[in-house]
């Protein structure tokens, strides 16, 4: 996130946004929010765990797909033998009922799918959202109408129903994680496009943009050099909040049986298999549920913190550890580009009528 902001000075010396100091300000504000820092640490840890999954499972001496029939009690429906779901020095978090597959290995490999799909889908959503939003704000009336109505349609589509339909018709030979990423990424970009369009409409009439236009710059150059830096705050903020939404979407799709295919583990898929075992082998359900909970909570708190740091005035009402007492001082030093109200993910396209 800091990269996007730090990139703006290089983008053009004539930008009115003193981005370097913006980045510094951002960090200063973020540092005052302890909850956001903890959340950032948790997210970093999760990403690390996901990246190091093969390493961690090698350390444990297990893998996510090997069956261990001897570790489950076949006569009792395949419940893991031993207390705590069969947790032992060999199987740190116990084993899966019926199969005896290692739960720690499945959990950390599951993190790869859950986080990977969510992050990649977010990138797709942001890319499409920004392109459509900026295009719509800068294009002529027809372009704007076309793109805005397309956005409306996309926003109106129910994500789950559409995903289920799409996933059902694609041949099973297509790699599933990629497919799930594409489906989530290509369906849920509507809100970010609306936010970007509104923000762009507000920005494009500001003096520095007008100046750039009068000096004969093309639309693309203006968009890149003058508008994108100003869009960074709302886009980053919204993206940070999209990630947990996407994680939930992947989990829900896997839960419904159209996500990644077995034997590839994902948290959503683990939840599906585990729901009947909540009494007989509770840890089987609690592990993926807890992992999902922690991840979504951490990302949401972090997203909220980022929003507060980027634009304190548009901060959410949640105010989780936002250090409210500093807010007045911060906003007083705010640059105009951060001053627009319609920057939160919950904003509508009021700017469109401006």
């Amino acid at each position: 996130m800091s990269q996007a902001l730090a990139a703006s000075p290089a983008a053009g010396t004539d930008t009115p946004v003193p981005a370097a100091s913006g980045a510094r300000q951002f960090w200063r504000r973020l540092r005052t929010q302890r909850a956001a820092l903890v959340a950032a640490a948790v997210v970093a840890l999760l990403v690390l765990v996901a990246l190091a999954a093969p390493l961690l499972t090698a350390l444990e001496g297990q893998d996510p797909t090997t069956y261990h029939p001897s570790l489950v009690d076949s006569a009792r429906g395949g419940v893991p033998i031993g207390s705590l779901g069969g947790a032992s020095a060999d199987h740190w978090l116990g084993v899966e009922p019926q199969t005896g597959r290692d739960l720690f290995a499945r959990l950390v490999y599951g993190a790869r799918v859950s986080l990977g799909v969510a992050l990649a889908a977010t990138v797709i959503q942001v890319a499409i959202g920004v392109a459509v939003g900026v295009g719509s704000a800068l294009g002529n009336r027809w372009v704007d109408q076309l793109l805005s109505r397309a956005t409306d349609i996309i926003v109106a589509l129910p994500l789950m129903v559409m995903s289920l339909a799409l996933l059902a018709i694609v041949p099973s030979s297509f790699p599933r994680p990629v497919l799930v990423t594409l489906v989530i990424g290509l369906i849920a970009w509507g809100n970010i496009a609306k936010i970007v369009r509104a923000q762009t409409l507000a920005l494009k009439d500001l003096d520095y943009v007008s100046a750039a236009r009068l000096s004969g710059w093309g639309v693309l150059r203006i968009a890149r050099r003058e508008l994108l830096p100003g869009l960074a705050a709302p886009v980053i903020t919204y993206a940070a909040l999209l990630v947990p939404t996407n994680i939930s979407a992947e989990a829900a799709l896997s839960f419904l049986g159209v996500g990644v295919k077995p034997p590839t583990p994902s948290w959503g898929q683990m939840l599906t298999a585990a729901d009947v075992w909540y009494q007989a082998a509770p840890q089987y359900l609690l592990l993926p549920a807890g992992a999902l909970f922690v991840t979504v909570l951490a990302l949401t708190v972090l997203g909220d913190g980022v929003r507060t740091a980027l634009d304190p005035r548009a901060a959410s009402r949640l105010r989780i550890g936002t250090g409210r007492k500093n807010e007045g001082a911060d906003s007083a030093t705010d640059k105009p580009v951060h001053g627009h109200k319609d920057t939160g993910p919950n904003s509508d396209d009021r700017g469109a009528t401006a």
Partner: protein
Amino acid sequence: MRQPSVSARRVAAASVTLVVAAGVAACGPKDTGAKAAGGDSQPHKDGTLSVLNAQPQQDFDPARLYTSGGGNVPSLVFRTLTTRNRENGSAGAKVVPDLATDTGRPSKDATVWTYTLKKGLTYEDGTPITSADIKYGIERSFAPELSGGAPYLRDWLVGAADYQGPYKDKKGLDAIETPDSRTIVFHLNKPEGEFPYLATQTQFTPVPKSKDTGTKYEEHPISSGPYKVVKNENDGEHLVLERNPHWSAATDSERKAYPDTIDVRSGLDSSVINQRLSASQGADAAAVTTDTNLGPAELAKVTGDKDLAARVGTGHFGYTNYIAFNPTVKPFDNVKVRQAISYAIDRSSVVNAAGGSALAEPATTFLPDQKSFGYTPYDLFPAGRAGDPAKARELLKQAGYGKGLTVTLTHSNSKDFETSPEIATAIQDALKKAGITVKLQGLEDNDYSDKIHTVKTEPGFFLAHWGADWPSGGPFLAPIFDGRQIVEDGANFNTGLLNDKSVNNEIDAINKLTDLDAAAERWGALDKKIGEQALTVPLFHPVYKRLYGKDVKNIVISDWTGVLDISQVAVK
């Protein structure tokens, strides 16, 4: 014969849903089953038996029902020429007389079967049951609007192939003669020693022509059994059966009919059914289910609960889950590859995936492990409990796949723990040890069923299952291995595309036998002989575990149906 019986498939479908539950259940001592329950007090006539089911009884017309042995609830209302005997376990797989005085008198070559009705048989309104009514009942099952029954009658009766039922063709079927009101004669186009088994199906129920209302008949079918239908709401979702005063135990030695009223509620979630049966409160104390099994998690939960464990009935239905090969698809054309996979299978992990040893028994034979099927134990490619990957590798090497092999296993995406991803991944893991990389191809249910039963699209390596229409080797082996039953256009069940003259001839020879015990023995031997070709890898036979309420007595679970027989239970 063309497909696993509806009852079998329903059972399977139900066992799916129930796994989605957890809250409940019972178990503990492994096989409580039949004997544990009845206990001290004698059964008495009285009370209301509740039946809690997942699947509604949408068809209640005897022409449309596809049952094994006349069904469970339907058998309370419909009597048939013969019926299944209601005994526990393997003793309960025999065909016995019902409306008829015996199980049928065959001609010398078993192509003509003659039955005589008992004296004094009447319907619920007191009118006498005649042989002409049975003929009419069979004829109307040929009407396209009343389709749904098993295809045997059309295949077996002389001149019945294109018959369209009595509504269109008033003349009726010449293949069925009724020389007098108590005699009925069937003319078959080939020897069928197992005709008495077929005569247990509800198509052999008498239907009085004057009361036939066509497709509406199922709303109030005329009872010949101990109960009559007094209520049928929401297309079979709620049925109320009350005593038929004209039924006489003197002519019916099989149905006990203890409760005064039977109340069938369906459309319930299987977890709810198991919760209610385990709580067993109020009216649920006198409740049973005829379609919902306990799932693995439910079994695990209640292991320690003695009270619940004592209320679990255990049953075996003739059913086999297996891997099927299509030998026209490479590399499965090579018998060594098929044998290698047979050796590599880890049946303990497959059994666990199916719910553990309490819910599935490892299978090495295609025929179910019951005497009536002619079960002949064999293990031609002994894989032990955990598979023999070394032997598999050796065979693969001989077949020219020493460097490993990659194959695709087709399965369904249902949640039935039969052809579902859980079983497929267990196989995938086992074959990995033998150097076989298995790619999984999961298909939606209908797509899967279409693909595996169409010769042109049949995959090379897939999961399948087969259930018995009656407890004999005939309906188990013939549809799958009789070369003349390969259907090029349409639903084909001979998935191994086996057309072996000696096999075909032996099937014909056994069909001529009217001594069912002798026939069973020959079916068992034939099963072993076919097994040598390794066209299938038998995986497991399912076991049914079902809860019943505290007040339910006289539990009888036969090997014919594998489920508690509600014609036997008492609630007082």
